């Protein structure tokens, strides 16, 4: 609800998705499968950085203090996680639609890819929420976010890329279940760590 008052941020990101995909369209017209996949995830990554980073960096100090007096930090981070997951789910779908509109539709298993995209959006937003919380503590937070975030996000992106490859071809990839399990495991890990560690981050 609070976020609706900062509508400009939301629409800003929508415009961001739109323009990024449009630029790709202008540059490469209709990319081939692998390229499409890579482009899609890179767009997804930047959208996530922009959307989720705002959730902590935009809050003023006073408001954070107000929240702190109001609720236990664990509930606060849980709320943030849930909110960002929902936000990112929305943006994932928007990105997907934009990509299909502008870059053509190379997918053979559309629904499967949609599932992977939602899962990917959730994983990305979970990790970046926690990173934004850490970066908010530091002084030059926007740059720090990129420095910390990209190495951490690389394994997840690699996994997602591999998983989503199977949406382009009718053949089934070996070891798919294992990768899904790993991705799910990572999500659980991030949630658990966020819930345990965030109270320490808020001790001021």
């Amino acid at each position, binding site marked *: 609800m609070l976020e609706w008052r900062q509508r400009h941020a939301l629409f800003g990101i929508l415009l961001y998705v739109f323009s990024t995909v449009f630029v790709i369209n202008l540059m490469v017209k209709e990319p081939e499968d692998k390229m499409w996949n890579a482009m899609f995830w890179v767009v997804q990554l930047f959208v996530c950085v922009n959307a989720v980073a705002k959730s902590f960096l935009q809050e003023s100090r006073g408001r954070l203090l107000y929240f702190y007096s109001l609720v236990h930090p664990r509930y606060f981070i849980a709320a943030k996680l849930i909110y960002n997951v929902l936000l990112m789910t929305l943006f994932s779908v928007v990105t997907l639609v934009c990509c299909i509109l502008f870059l053509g539709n190379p997918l053979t298993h559309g629904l499967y890819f949609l599932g992977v995209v939602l899962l990917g959006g959730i994983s990305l937003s979970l990790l970046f929420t926690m990173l934004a919380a*850490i970066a908010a503590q*530091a*002084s030059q937070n926007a740059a720090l976010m990129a420095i910390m975030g990209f190495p*951490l996000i690389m*394994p997840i992106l690699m996994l997602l890329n591999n998983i989503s490859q199977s949406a382009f071809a009718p053949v089934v990839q070996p070891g798919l279940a294992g990768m899904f399990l790993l991705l799910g*495991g990572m999500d659980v890990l991030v949630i658990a760590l966020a819930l345990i560690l965030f109270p*320490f981050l808020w001790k001021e």
Partner: protein
Amino acid sequence: MAKNWWKIACVLILLYVIIGGFSVKVPSIGNNQQAARSIFFHLPMWMCMYTLLAISVVNSVWYLATNDLRRDIRASSAGSIGVLFGMMGFATGMLWSTYTWGGTIVNDPKQMTTAIALTIYMAYLVLRLSFTDLDKRARVSAIFNVFAFALLIPLTYIIPRMVESLHPGSATSPGFSSQDTAGTIKMVLWPAFLGWTLLGIWIYTLRNRYKRLVLKNILHG
């Protein structure tokens, strides 16, 4: 002197490892030939890195529990030395792969994931640099350290075992131990683990002491 016996042991073991590593008869495995001797220097680096990073993360958790800045110093020194050994492990691996796989960076999953893990730890070191407030730096970097360690283990230990890799001991290729019939590799490798790890811990204690003096200077003028 009584407390320093392990440093002497470390030097002696490393002497044995270096002399033994270059003179012992190694079995010819695949296209490794004599390059298999790299195992005495490549593998122990990772053991040492794991040990130091484990020390680092334990101290980070300890810091979060006690808020004792000395714990943070320990965590940071162990982290930086761990990264140093990780980089040396990467370098020796590159040297080895030049002669065995025909390139410094081949498209090997273990190499990739290890590179990512090392980048994460470098991000930890950069993160430390970006704070001016000591307590805040300690707290935030301790939290990031826990994250980094939680990703290090799946990255370097679990994923490479699941996928096909050129490295021995992955899903498709067997390890070296089955081919080491005479046991010569084992004879040098186990002391090598111990020796290099001791060396790493030694460097870590030195750095730790230095950092503590720096901290003392800051706190007490």
